[in-house]
């Protein structure tokens, strides 16, 4: 009788130990089923900023990036003048986070005035303000996030994952100058404005849409309007 009770106590202790220590290998299959508990929303909205503007978005790019983090647990040290760096068995943690983002380029018409318009008889030239680029949205592909956590490690925390996502976002922003979105924005602006001016009675051949200059990759950093 005493042996049975002792056995049950040991089993219960092991179960509770695993439960509280949260030692397990999380696979993607575990992420699939919908949560069976009810979520409770108890906190309000933080802040809202409403701003009047006049921006004509002319180019949209959808981009994709995967952030990976390989977090191996290593035993490092120096003993008897000898350095060692040993990978601890079952101490690996890996995560791969796919990020989809949408970038848009626009022309800000809020300061558009008569100075931007030149007329010469039937001909009209519109000098447009510098195009600008912004990231309008980003989405973590949660269904395809992969995590592999070794038995001796804890799961990635939400703060760690958010940090990796923010680094991925920053890397997407850093890559914008190489994408050619400004050139697309300039070309597409004519597709919106020329039909508008034709509707006003101008002949297509008499319309010129111009920009201040041809923008190179070095200019694009100044044209990026990304919120931190």
């Amino acid at each position, binding site marked *: 009788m005493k042996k049975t009770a002792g056995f049950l106590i040991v089993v219960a202790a092991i179960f509770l130990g695993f439960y509280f220590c949260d030692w397990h290998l999380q696979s993607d299959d575990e992420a699939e*089923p919908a*949560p069976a508990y009810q979520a409770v929303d108890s906190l309000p909205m*933080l802040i*809202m900023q409403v701003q009047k503007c006049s921006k*004509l978005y002319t180019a949209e790019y959808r981009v994709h990036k995967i952030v990976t983090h390989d*977090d191996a647990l290593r035993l490092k*040290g120096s003993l008897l003048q000898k350095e060692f760096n040993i990978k601890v068995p079952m101490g690996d943690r890996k995560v791969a986070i796919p990020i989809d983002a949408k970038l848009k380029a626009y022309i800000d018409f809020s300061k558009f005035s008569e100075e931007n318009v030149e007329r010469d008889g039937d001909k009209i030239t519109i000098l447009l303000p510098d195009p600008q680029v912004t990231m309008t*949205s980003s989405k973590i592909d949660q269904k395809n996030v992969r995590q592999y956590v070794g038995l001796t490690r804890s799961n990635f925390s939400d703060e760690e994952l958010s940090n990796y996502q923010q680094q991925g976002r920053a890397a997407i922003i850093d890559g914008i100058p190489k994408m050619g979105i400004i050139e697309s924005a300039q*070309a597409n602006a004519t597709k919106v404005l020329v039909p508008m001016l034709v*509707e006003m009675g101008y002949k297509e051949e008499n319309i010129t849409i111009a920009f201040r200059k041809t923008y190179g990759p070095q200019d694009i950093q100044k044209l990026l309007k990304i919120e931190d």
Partner: protein
Amino acid sequence: MKILTYIKIGIGAAIVVLLIAGFFWLRGETKNSYIDFGTSDKIDLTPTQIQSMKAIGEWEFLSVSTEEIVDTIRKGIFSDDELVRIYYGTLRLGVNMHHVGDNWIQTSGDSITLTLPKIELLDKEFIDEARTKSFYERGSWKPADRDALYQKAYRQMLHHSMTKENLQAAKANASQQMHDIMRALGYQHVSVTFQQ
């Protein structure tokens, strides 16, 4: 007997001297020694892939930037688990120039009438999820839980931002901006209406 005792004392003393010498040798050898557990913070990024690029004609007249703090609680036997995150998003209200009707511009001398498409939410994807901040976490949460939080933040942002007042403000600003642009183009009398 006496000799045996001296031998024993001698061996004992030698062992003590050896131990002391060994201790000092080991101390000297391990002076700069250390053992530490460490993890690598190496983050790798794949090259950015451009999946699509397209020409658009979205004219934004009101931007609503919001931050929503969203939480989820999981009831437990001993304690409750909780995850709180802060989501950021910008809802852009305006007109899609690809939806203009035929003859949407009518001119007569220095007068012009514009019939713009109705004010709408220009892009249904407005949350910058990669900018999300983790505020509080207790317990273990899966990607599906984060997806559910995203959906909740999305609904809250829509509810708080797509108000009658904001739509009206966007419409009024669209009218004002179009007036200014048309005046810059030389029209003195400008009339702006919206499709129903």
